[in-house]
């Protein structure tokens, strides 16, 4: 779904700062969420401060993360479709209008790798293209409800993680993007055979609007967990959160 974005420069940086920010955002989230007098009548709660309800919703969302991790079958493939099923035009979606999508110079582009990996050398597009490639035609499902079928191909994330000597028992893989969007996924999903560092959309390199030059394609998660314009990948045991996740979208958001 598209709200894809890139990560802030300190996405994975100052954990304390991030935690405080997340608490603040959570509070704002719940306030917005609960400013409903009917609910107050319904529950008899004092909704002037939505904190108790907010905390409850937040902990239920964490419970739902655990249930979904348990339901996730690492070998179950998302349904695939024929080329004639592809949605044209494929919708653009981000937290900003299409004109604001970042223009990235292919020659200057470098993908940074950090965290629990043995090789932190940055990657050029040519090096990424030299790795084994794999394609898929799958359904992108947005948290808003709509869905669209698209074709992506690129490097299976598992291949990439093995190549950089990542600790495959770490908890999370985080992504930060050139548009200050950021997101993260669980390691089980990162190693799923269809989780892909996509370089192409259809049969051509990703256009700017779909995330040039690198987009994570995860058909087992909602669209907002498919960040575009990725410039950094981190392997970590501290959940890096995400642009929408930190505001209240369910973190796991698995399909």
């Amino acid at each position, binding site marked *: 779904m598209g709200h894809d974005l890139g990560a802030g420069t300190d996405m994975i940086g100052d954990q304390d700062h991030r935690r405080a920010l997340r608490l603040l955002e959570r509070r704002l*989230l*719940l*306030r*917005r*969420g*609960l*400013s*409903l007098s*009917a*609910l107050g009548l*319904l*529950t008899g709660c004092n909704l002037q401060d939505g904190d108790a309800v907010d905390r*409850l*919703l*937040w902990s*239920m*969302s964490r*419970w*739902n993360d655990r249930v979904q991790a348990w*339901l*996730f*079958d690492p070998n*179950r*493939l*998302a*349904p695939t479709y024929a080329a004639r099923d592809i949605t044209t035009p494929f919708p653009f979606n981000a937290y900003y209008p299409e004109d604001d999508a970042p223009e990235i110079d292919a020659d200057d582009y470098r993908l940074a790798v950090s965290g629990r990996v043995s090789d932190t050398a940055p990657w050029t597009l040519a090096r990424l293209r030299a790795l084994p490639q794999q394609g898929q035609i799958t*359904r992108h*499902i*947005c*948290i*808003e*409800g*709509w*869905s669209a079928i698209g074709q992506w191909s690129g490097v299976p994330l598992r291949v990439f993680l093995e190549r950089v000597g990542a600790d495959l028992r770490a908890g999370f893989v985080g992504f930060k993007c050139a548009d200050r969007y950021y997101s993260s996924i669980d390691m089980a999903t990162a190693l799923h055979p269809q989780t892909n560092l996509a370089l192409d959309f259809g049969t051509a390199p990703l256009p700017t609007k779909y995330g040039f030059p690198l987009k994570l394609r995860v*058909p*087992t998660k909602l669209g907002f967990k498919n960040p575009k314009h990725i410039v950094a990948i981190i392997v970590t045991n501290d959940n890096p959160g995400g642009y*929408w996740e930190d*505001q*209240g*979208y*369910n973190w796991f958001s*698995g*399909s």
Partner: protein
Amino acid sequence: MQPIPIRLTHWINAAAIIGMMMSGWAIYNASPLFGFSFPRWATLGGWLGGAIAWHLALMWLLVGNGLLYAVYLLGSGYYRRLRPLGPGAVLDDVRAALRFRLPHQAGEYNAIQRLTYCVVLLAGVMVLLSGLALWKPVQLQTLAAALGGYEWARRVHFIAMAVIAGFTVLHVGMALLVPSVLWGMILGRART
């Protein structure tokens, strides 16, 4: 006339369904399937993230409570009171209703009521199955496929919701028209 497990699960169900419906309408509004949106005052959650947080929290209450209800219904034999009576009895009752002679009394369900309750229970099953298919279209892809795929599951979910909403309007209207049944569901007996 209404045993405690029925009264308890009924009112928990009422609260859960209202919350599910209002948060569901907010989710619908994020990408309306049909040519309209629900008014904002009728939604719960404030924004999409809040609405989904409500929807996926209340689903546990709804399903847990529904399971308790089902266990009691089957275990106690209470389901016999709701068992449909067949088309002949329904037609008789429709005729009686048209002449304003259909009894609506506490402790006994006529053929139309039984039919209505069965339809809404079926809609409840469908809303649950389609909801699971929308939540987990990959992990539960067999279920999603049985409903015609993800996009059809959205429509099934909406239609089942509409049936439940229609039932709720009818049900509340009837309870207000015949208050003794309302007291039965609150107190377990007629108000003295």
